[in-house]
């Protein structure tokens, strides 16, 4: 599998970028971040800026994990 997936995490640790991941590694990372932080995230495609309803990972994707904002 080609390592071309990038995941941007807009999270509690600050802005993080994980480059050159395989789709499987990206999926693992996304799941780990979600379970570690215990927060809801939107997974968006950076190029199209659309929030993905279902995670279908392919090569050469740039994904963004956007935390769901909470109202006060």
């Amino acid at each position: 599998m080609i390592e071309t997936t990038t995941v941007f995490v807009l999270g509690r640790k600050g802005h993080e970028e994980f480059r050159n991941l395989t789709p499987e590694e990206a999926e693992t990372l996304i799941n780990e971040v979600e379970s570690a932080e215990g927060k809801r995230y939107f997974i968006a495609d950076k190029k199209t800026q659309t929030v993905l309803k279902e995670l279908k990972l392919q090569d050469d994707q740039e994904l963004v994990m956007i935390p769901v904002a909470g109202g006060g």
Partner: protein
Amino acid sequence: MNEESRRLEVTPEGVFIVGSRKISLSSLKARKTRLESQILRLHREQIQLKSQIEANNKKIGELELELATFNSPEVLAWIERRERQIVEARERRREERKEANQRARVFLREYIGEEPYAKLRNKGFLEFKGSDGRNYRINSKGQLYCGSSRICVIHPRNLPLPDFVISVLTTVKEGQLVRR
């Protein structure tokens, strides 16, 4: 002799009226008893104070011994090393936050596009439509408005402001802003 008498006394320090009063036997005895008990009480207090001083001296000795261990060269060196580590870690975190903010700014520009980014920078706010069809406005401080009403949104700690702007934009566009 009168029961009470007063006379003037002239001394180099000044002029004084000096009075004297006859005392009965019972008053005399009572006064004597009072004086004796006062002396006794003060003696008792002195003994208590002495034992308190001794106990305090003992405690001071113990504390000084304990303090000496805190002032040992090993402990002082450890404190110095730890304080240096804390300062370095703080510096590192500050640097990381600065870099993260820079990356987040670049990312926001790429993510929302050149034109909206320029609007946010130049006008100080960005208008967009929410999933409910209403017009929203977010300013460069990350404050969200619907019309003239400010909507309270929690800014998570450590989340860089540009990332927070994306988070609020996406959440409102997706209709997921829930009041907690």
